[in-house]
């Protein structure tokens, strides 16, 4: 079955620490990949997306993600987090017939 997994439920970091959030999916064919961010009390906003081409994609607010096809992964990274990055992060995958979201990772950045 097609599914999306985010391994970390809650990540706590101090400001300036580096961030990597994991996302894996189960499907052997072509997919489109997304990361969304949801700030407290707000709706989901698109951080970045990958359809094809360079597997390293850059998004807004200094975020980037790398698609590794052999690992079915699309991990989100940021070299130095800020307090304002405190939010919930959702990985999403568009399969041929469906779009699925991961369960989300809550990021707390301590000042």
């Amino acid at each position, binding site marked *: 079955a097609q599914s999306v997994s*985010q391994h970390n439920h809650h990540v706590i970091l101090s400001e300036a620490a580096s961030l990597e959030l994991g996302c894996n999916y189960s499907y052997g064919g072509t997919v*489109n990949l*997304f990361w*969304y961010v949801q700030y407290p009390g*707000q*709706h*989901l*906003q*698109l951080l970045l*997306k990958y*359809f094809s081409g360079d597997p390293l994609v850059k998004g807004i607010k200094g975020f980037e993600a790398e698609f590794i096809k052999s690992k079915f992964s699309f991990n989100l990274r940021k070299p130095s987090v800020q307090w304002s990055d405190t939010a919930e992060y*959702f990985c999403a995958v*568009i399969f041929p017939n*469906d*779009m*699925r*979201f*991961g*369960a*989300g990772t809550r990021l707390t950045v301590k000042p």
Partner: protein
Amino acid sequence: DAGITQSPRYKITETGRQVTLMCHQTWSHSYMFWYRQDLGHGLRLIYYSAAADITDKGEVPDGYVVSRSKTENFPLTLESATRSQTSVYFCASSEDRGLGYTFGSGTRLTVV
């Protein structure tokens, strides 16, 4: 303003009552979606629509009804609300199902 708007933002209703959540988009996107967001489950698709008068079930459609008589509107109705339907509901739209979605601000529904 252009965009996708949901109403109401907050709703409290009683078990057994019918309630309708509204979603309106101004981009003329073909696709519209309803998701519910619950702790530990992320977002789960309830229903989606590929165009006016075309709707299809998602992952968790039971207890919900949708309609799409006009491209810009996609209301979600809970025919007889249950406590398990307490959730945050997000509407989204997209030009194409393979592209990213734009989400509304959500409706927080509490069924008591």
